[in-house]
């Protein structure tokens, strides 16, 4: 059983609430769920949709084919009608969309139902949700409970009225349109979490001891700030909205210098402003974690859509040469653990660490079975309290074998902590002599990088262990590549090689992925125009992929369309 429900309408019609409530309903009912949102950069009007795929088995991407389309306006029917699957139906209210002929159309008068009950017109959404659940052979519970938690601020009376309207939609659909879909039960008593990429990064930061977060609102990264702000009071996190991204990263660096774990997040345009701050983190060796949640550029590009076109920008962001780390998680689970690892490595090696995501990962909810507390890294690398007080001398940039100097907290002892954006000596004071410069470059780069590289995990191989065909990717294409492999393995020896830790590029000593690449026909799949990852792979290993599949229209790969492109090539 594998079902796709798409809800379409205008911005301002409440799609995120309808979609959010239904996704949670299916999740609590025991299904595996995957959602994704497609919205325009406007507050009212236009055309948006919210897609929920749910199944009785694990799923990890969106499909192109729709089994049930809930249309809240006429445009939705016109735009998505051609994507209906063999069993596909369209649910709509003739009053909202105009009467549409066709045997796949299910007309239910949400507006009339609301008018008969004499309640606020906005509640047509509840009537529609009730009807959807009835058509799918579901019960109204636990929707009623979940809906209450989504709009709890509106009070018990409004919630009760909405549930009554949903019941009316539910009853009408069951009476007038019985037996439309028969979904098997999920057959699963174990309930999953439902979490998107932004929440996973926020939670990863929280569990890593992040105490300070400063950012300028920029979609699709803003969900991270929303999550941390909601935890500020309970866990003592300062979340500050900066006047611009330059300020955001400099504030975070100030907080980190003062002794707390700090983070900022943005998208490509904001990261452009942050790059001087990245360089500052590099020379001052101040730990910082930056989440870069991509959207299509150049410049303002497609502000609410998805792309993987900032890979080189983040790897190379910041003038001068210094050590940094870049992670590209492909799932909320990877986003959680890699954000945690980012904080660990930022403080251990005193370098900037980037968690690169994109709109698709940021806004997509996945069913996850939970995270493991014993896999969360919580190691403190700062020099504080008694340990610091007993030191006879302290130099912020003291030379050491590994290039890592003790990181003291200013004010906790009589030792002064002096950092400088100029080249500096071990005390942190300005120098210009070539000898000290060479020592410092060696310390920041050549001594640290081999130790960092040892901690970078190799790519993940999924599918056939000796593949004839190998799909190569990084970041948010993980899920669609995985399901593509599941499909193609029936015919061929197929596998996926997914990179979630891309800089420094993984060594081959733990897993010789380069010889695996050499033995297969390789197809690199990327959500960008130029194949940046394929280029990075070639730059780092000399290996050149046989074929590239690129999508750069601002939309994620859907399973069917990717399979179509793969079949064309094969």
């Amino acid at each position, binding site marked *: 059983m594998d079902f796709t429900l798409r809800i379409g309408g205008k911005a301002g019609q409440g799609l995120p609430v309808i979609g959010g409530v239904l996704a949670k309903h299916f999740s609590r009912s025991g299904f595996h769920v995957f959602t994704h949102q497609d919205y325009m950069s406007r507050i009212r009007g236009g055309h948006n949709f919210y897609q929920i795929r749910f199944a009785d088995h694990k799923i990890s991407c969106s499909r192109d084919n729709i089994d049930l389309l809930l249309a809240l306006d006429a445009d939705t029917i016109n735009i998505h009608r051609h994507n209906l699957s063999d069993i596909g139906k369209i649910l709509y209210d003739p009053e909202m969309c105009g009467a549409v002929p066709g045997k796949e159309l299910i007309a239910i008068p949400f507006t009339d139902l609301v008018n008969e009950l004499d309640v606020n017109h906005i509640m047509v959404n509840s009537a529609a949700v009730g009807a959807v659940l009835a058509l799918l052979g579901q019960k109204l519970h636990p929707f009623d409970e979940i809906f209450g938690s989504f709009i709890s601020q509106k009070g018990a009376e409004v919630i009760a009225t909405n549930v009554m309207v949903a019941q009316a939609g539910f009853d009408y659909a069951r009476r007038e349109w019985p037996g439309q879909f028969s979904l098997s039960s999920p057959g699963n008593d174990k309930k999953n979490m*439902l979490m998107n990429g932004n929440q996973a990064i926020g939670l990863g930061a929280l569990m890593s001891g992040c*105490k300070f977060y400063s950012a300028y609102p920029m979609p699709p990264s803003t969900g991270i700030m929303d999550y941390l702000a909601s935890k500020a009071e309970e866990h003592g996190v*300062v979340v500050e909205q900066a006047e611009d991204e330059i*300020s955001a990263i400099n504030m975070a660096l100030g907080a980190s*210098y003062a002794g707390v774990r700090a983070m900022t997040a943005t998208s490509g345009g904001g990261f452009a402003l942050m790059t001087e701050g990245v360089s500052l983190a590099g020379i001052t060796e101040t730990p910082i974690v930056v989440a870069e949640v991509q959207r299509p550029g150049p410049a303002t590009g497609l502000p609410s859509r998805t792309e993987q076109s900032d890979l080189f920008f983040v790897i190379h962001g910041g003038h001068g040469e210094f050590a940094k780390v870049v992670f590209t998680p492909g799932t909320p689970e990877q986003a959680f653990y890699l954000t945690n690892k980012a904080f660990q490595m930022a403080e251990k090696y005193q370098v900037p660490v980037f968690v690169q995501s994109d709109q698709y990962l940021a806004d997509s909810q996945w069913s996850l079975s939970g995270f493991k507390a014993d896999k969360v890294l919580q190691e403190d690398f700062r020099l504080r309290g008694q340990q610091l007080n007993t030191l006879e001398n302290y130099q912020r940039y003291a030379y050491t074998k590994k290039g890592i100097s003790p990181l003291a907290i200013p004010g906790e002892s009589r030792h002064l902590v002096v950092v400088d*954006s100029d080249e500096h000596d071990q005390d942190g*004071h300005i120098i210009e002599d070539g000898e000290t410069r060479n020592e410092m470059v060696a310390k920041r780069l050549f001594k640290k990088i081999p130790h960092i590289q040892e901690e970078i995990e190799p790519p993940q191989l999924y599918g056939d262990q000796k593949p004839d065909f190998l799909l190569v990717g990084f970041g948010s294409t993980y899920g669609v590549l995985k399901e593509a492999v599941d499909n193609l393995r029936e015919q061929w020896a197929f596998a996926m090689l997914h990179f979630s830790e891309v800089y420094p590029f993984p060594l081959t000593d733990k897993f010789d992925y380069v010889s695996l690449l050499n033995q297969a026909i390789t197809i690199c799949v990327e959500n960008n125009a130029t194949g940046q990852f394929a280029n990075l792979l070639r730059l780092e290993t000399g290996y050149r992929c046989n074929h590239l599949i690129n999508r750069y229209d601002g939309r994620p790969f859907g399973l069917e369309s990717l399979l179509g492109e793969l079949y064309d090539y094969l």
Partner: protein
Amino acid sequence: MTTFDDYSGQKPAWCQGCGNFAILNALKRAMVDLDMEPHQFTIVSGIGQAGKLPHYIKCNTFNGLHGRTLPVATGIKLANHDMAVLAVAGDGDCYGEGGNHLIHAIRRNINVTLLVHNNLVYGLTRGQASPTTPQGRITKTQPFGSLSSPLNPMALAISLDCSFVARAFAGASGLPFLKEIIKEAINHEGFAIVDILQNCVSFNKINTFHWYKERAYQLETGYDPTDRIEAFRRSLEWGEKIPTGIFYRNDRPAFEKGITPLQDSPLVKQNYFLKDLQQELAPFY
């Protein structure tokens, strides 16, 4: 008790006769008077000759990027509000490159003391017009004269209801007065701007030490610094007579006082590693 010598830092790389020396001297004396030990305060600076100041006094130091002193200082203060935090910048640094940050630091009223070394010219980049250069002043890069009207930092700060606005003049004769103003600014709870008029011996041959000495006067006894309209009127005085002193102050609560997680202890003293992952996961089920 600390002494003047407790604050001896690196040997300054400034030009002989630079107004920066008087500012450094006044700052060290202010710290002696306040009995603030070197590890108890942090100076954040940017780029320019002013940006080198923290190297020449003993203190915790963050010598960051051009224009970015105030965001870094804000981050430090929010992470550790027990630490006294000063920002030191020049007119190009603070009023040009970092102008946006100044506006928003004033709005926040973060408890940071900003000292601006204002010499009406770019020194380290060799003589270009700064945001405070008088209109019409000809330089190598402004061959038709500086066409923009100069920024008035006092009027700007007062218009934004900055909680402490002062101006002083850097010269041996004005040193005790400058020291007192710096002390008042550090003791003020909230954002304090001290615009310090100084000479530039290398690139400003007009607004010299003597030019200021003839014009600068102290706001009269009985001047009421809580009268915002009068403060604004006095901030517009410039030319033959240049007022110095505390133009304006108010008792807006400092930014960090309004942040709930900072009410019991500084952020840096709080627990950081959360122990209960399951509790955080519960809302996602």
